């Protein structure tokens, strides 16, 4: 049986198999994830005070509060200042303004990979490339006056 197989598998036959094999593995790559994704961006303010002096602020969602608690951050309370939804596709980057001084631009790079560019007062501060599967979260943040903090949360919704 093996001897018979050996005589049948001539170099030309192998080449057909190799081309078929390559097509099999490259096709999913070629067709993968050309669709976009739905994201949610939030601008938060971190503080140790129990309340925010800004009446427009809302306490942050419980799921985000829990995740922030797991990070090496010293603040006990977080308040939501802005929340924006973003539908992003591979075709074009999308920029949203979260406050007068804070913008982010998100680009889908393929699959669950995104590129986030953060602008502070119109100037580019950081560009982060990140896998963001559903349920995961990216947090950009920095210190603010009086031992408080600003945070930008980017969450994949769909």
């Amino acid at each position, binding site marked *: 049986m093996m001897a018979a197989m050996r005589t049948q598998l001539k170099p030309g036959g192998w080449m057909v198999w190799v081309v078929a094999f390559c097509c099999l593995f490259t096709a999913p790559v070629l067709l993968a994830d050309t669709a976009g994704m739905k994201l949610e961006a939030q601008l938060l303010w971190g503080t140790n005070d129990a309340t925010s002096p800004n009446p427009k602020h809302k306490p942050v969602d419980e799921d985000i509060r829990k995740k922030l608690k797991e*990070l*090496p*951050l*010293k603040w006990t309370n977080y308040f939501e200042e802005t929340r924006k939804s973003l539908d992003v596709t591979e075709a074009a980057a999308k920029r949203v303004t979260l406050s007068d001084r804070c913008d982010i631009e998100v680009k889908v790079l393929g699959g669950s990979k995104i590129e986030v560019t953060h602008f502070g007062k119109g100037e580019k501060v950081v560009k982060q490339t990140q896998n963001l599967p559903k349920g995961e979260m990216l947090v950009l943040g920095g210190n603010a006056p009086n031992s408080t903090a600003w945070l930008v949360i980017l969450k994949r919704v769909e």
Partner: protein
Amino acid sequence: MTGHEHSSADDEALVRAAQQGNLGAFEELVARHRDKIYARAFSMMRNEEEALDLSQEAWVKAWQRLAQFQRESSFGTWMTRIVINLCLDQLRKQKRYRTESLEAIDEESGGVERQMPVLTVNPTERLERAELRQRIEIALDQLSYEHRTVLVLHEFEEMEYKEIARVMECSIGTVMSRLFYARRKLAVILSDLKKDEAT
């Protein structure tokens, strides 16, 4: 070419030569920094044999990763970070490194160190350097791995709280509590030793 032939070159020239595959230059770097790297491993592990093995491993890793050294810090600092990471990995593997838990936080944030009376006299006063060294060694031996690691990273490596939190994978609050506990315990141990000597 042996390391001894490179003894007049500065670290930067030696790193450049070593990056081109010159083992003699690398040997000179080992000779210059070996005590510091071993000392850091010993501070963290408190065991001569483990410290020797880990510092040797750090040097082998450094040779393999030499191309990645970008001169953003000094060679000595780069080497120290390699050995610290190896020690942390080893401590985690040995499970001496407790996972941060609510109990641990409670113990550290509300523990006895808060109630300990503050020492009003310098416990290290009038001690000879050698004697002080010996007492600190005893005190470091008595600290838990978590407390000692925070103390070593802060006092010897001069890392900031947030950097320690990152390498130890815990919160900044835990770093501050552990550091506070470690220092208070160290002060009490030094002062107790002094009292023991007086009696």
